């Protein structure tokens, strides 16, 4: 029986030891402020020769997952009209709101916006800016609408660190949205 008592004692110490270094992982939970999100994409069409600005947005304030997108506008433009198209990217999950457009501009040699209307006859896009390597960016440009019709406008932000060559292929999508486009 002496041995059994010794054994029991050792067992207790053994089990006890496992609690000695207990640390609560709950106290270390903190929101991550460095993490970058794009929660809102706004396209601003300024009709040439006027100050009429039409804005169309996609907004998903809590980022991927969680709640669904709160806003996904239909782009409505006039036929056979020339617009200046600018784009604005925001991270609204942070306070204050983080302007991602500015950061894209600073690193314009790694970024490329691609605007793809379908059918192609709906709109023609011409880049209005260039980076240090003389490759287009797409923060600002010219959009000329065609005849009336319905379709889509795909808006992509290609992130191409170290690989930007003026073509859309290298890199990966940071933004890839299919806006509904109505020309009427």
């Amino acid at each position: 029986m002496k041995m059994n008592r010794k054994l029991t004692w050792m067992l207790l110490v053994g089990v006890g030891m496992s609690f000695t270094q207990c640390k609560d992982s709950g106290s270390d939970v903190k929101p991550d402020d460095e993490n970058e999100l794009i929660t809102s994409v706004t396209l601003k069409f300024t009709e040439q020769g006027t100050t009429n600005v039409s804005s169309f947005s996609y907004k998903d304030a809590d980022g991927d997952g969680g709640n669904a997108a709160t806003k996904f506008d239909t782009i409505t433009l006039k036929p056979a009209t020339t617009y200046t198209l600018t784009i604005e990217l925001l991270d609204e999950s942070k306070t204050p709101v983080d302007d991602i457009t500015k950061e894209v501009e600073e690193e314009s040699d790694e970024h490329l916006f691609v605007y793809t209307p379908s059918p192609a006859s709906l709109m023609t896009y011409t880049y209005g800016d260039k980076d240090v390597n003389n490759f287009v960016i797409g923060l600002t440009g010219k959009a000329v609408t065609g005849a009336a019709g319905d379709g889509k406008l795909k808006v992509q932000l290609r992130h191409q660190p170290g690989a930007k060559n003026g073509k859309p292929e290298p890199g990966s999508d940071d933004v890839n949205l299919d806006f509904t486009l109505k020309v009427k």
Partner: protein
Amino acid sequence: MSRLLLSFLILLVSIVSHAQKTDCGCFVKGIVKDQHSGQPIVGATVLILGQNSGVFTDENGRYELRNLCPGSYTLECRIVGYNSFRQKLDLTAGHEENFNLLEQEVHLKDVEITAHRTDAPSSQPLTTLSGSDLEKTRGQNLGESLKGLAGVTTLQTGSSISKPVIHGLHSNRILIMNNGVRQEGQQWGSEHAPEIDPFIATRLSVVKGAAGVRYGSDAIGGVILVEPEELPFDKSLSGEANAVGFTNGRQGVLSGTVQGGIKGFKGFGWRTQGTIKRGGNIKTPGYYLDNTGISEKNFSLAAGYRHKGLGVDVFYSRFDTKIGIFSGSHIGSITDLLNVIKNGEPFVKSGFNYAIGRPNQNVTHELLKAETHYHFQNGNRFQWTIARQINDRNEYDLHRPRNDSIAALNHPELTFKLTTLTNDVIWDHKPIAGKIAGQLGVSTLYQYNLMNGRPLIPNFNQFNIGLFWMERYVKNGWELEAGVRYDYRTLKTYRIVNREKVADHFTFHNFSGTLGATRNFSERFSARLNVGTAWRAPNVSELFSDGVHHGAAAYEKGDATLQPEKALNTIGSVKYTDAKWSLEIGGYYNYISDFIYLKPQPEPILTVRGAFPYFKYTQTDASFKGVDVSASWEFIRHTTVSSKLSYLRVYDQRADNYLVMIPPNRLDNQLKYELPDVGKWQKVFISAGNLFVAQQKRVPPASDFLPPPKAYSLWSLQAGATIRVTEKQQLEIGVSVQNLFNTVYRDYLNRFRYYANDMGRNGSLRLKWKFGA
């Protein structure tokens, strides 16, 4: 198939009936005594080598082995604290053989201690890789090393990260015991390889099938045992140096071990071991894979002390690796993925380079273990193991923050720090009536995970306690065993939802059991059958995942209401060995109720990066049916042909469909020619091999972006020799070429199969210099 099965059965029955016809009335009996004191030794094991049959000595030190067939046998008598003793016998009738054992302190030559306590039910198949088979795998990672065993495959992320898959199950369903401690890393992630340096081990064993009773929850698919050699107590200095070079990736590995005892300090042994590895970009048959280099630095220290029945061991290991992830696989959206698939080869190409850029992962794993055991005079044994593990994982994404000041800090986008404390107390009771041996044990685990960065899994605290009891009965070629276990687990998670801290609390508990029988019909022929249960609680990623999975271009969502998986595993095998033939056929049926898997959802999920296919963790009932066959035949002197076949069918019972990500069937053939030893040249061999992997045709419809790749066939060549330089020094040389014909292929279980081909031709040269004892 059924005809094949039938012929197997006929073969089986004929072997069984043949075995029963022989007259097997021989027996061996005797007394085991201490050579000095002359006292009988209680609880010593008397084994017939190569047969798995044995008995324990009773309170008078007596043993008896009955119903033996005439023939020659080698008996081994062993008990911890004494040198084991072997005796060859030619049996024609009854025989008496007494053993006089020497205490280990007295006699120091050839100490053989049964320190490799695998403890797995003996009725479960245990496949071991050691000696020259293990040497051939040197320089590869743990998953790759085990790939040659029937029934074991790998789940890969490119060519540098691989996880072992046993009978179609992996990650948290496979338990890895690293030097007696359950490996607790970030196993849940398919791109998280086991953080273990295979150079630590002199034996790698795989227990196929559920072994939940002995090893606790998670061992639903099987257990991998990574076991070092016993420490060199009171031996002189010895060691080895390994150098391995691979042509693909121009990878080099250096590893060294030095070990010995201490003069004037009896009963002491120590070992130190270290490995460095450096490799660059891997080449497929057509192009290099950008950023696939690897850099690894590992070391371990061990020391132990033995005195009479007492043993104390301490072990520390540190594993440190930096792995580049093929940059073409870090994509942002489904269109990127579809573009790559359409292109057929990666957009990102590069030449050869050792540099590891983004994306990469940086992992360190530390293990500190202390073990003590004591043998009581009456045959009881007590063992206590306490261990602490710290797993620190940093993942760097391809995508740096756009804000230059934040990017300059070069922080990882994701870190996990997992700390684990485990305690195992085992009591082996003294054999009852010389025939029943058993053990009782309690295991605890305390774990906390701290994470930082892009949200993936929550922080958590986990506590687990398990109690188990196993008994084994050995008589007349029969070995029966039974065991039960109870586990209780609590899990507390903490995560941020809409900038608020949310805590969740889960408790899980479960009983599991095992029942097995082994029958040794003769020295050559044995059969075993085991029925076991095991369970696994859902892990935090299955409960709380919520985001786009990098590389897979899929949105994965957890479910906090998931219930534990419960497995019922039946596994049976027969084994026949003689001088020229060796054949092992095993079949298994593993039914897992509430099997957790990712179920594709009908509607894609819309994010700023586009619409993603949406997968949710769901439960179903799954059945895993399979056959493993290993055979070898020395058809001409020195020339052996060997084959391994793994066949597996997995079915989702509820959905009445197949499951995804199940390894395809495979057949591995080898032809080996061994040259007779000439002078200093020993164990000289050349061999050629072919691995055929079939196409996985059993997949659910529309389950994937790309259908499973076509079948492939790879050829390889190996040669090796051992040169005895002096009495105490030897040099081992091995050369091999894998994927001899630079075949273009993709493997279904390689997650990079969407982006690029698998590795092309890879030649290697291994040198090993051994010195000392």
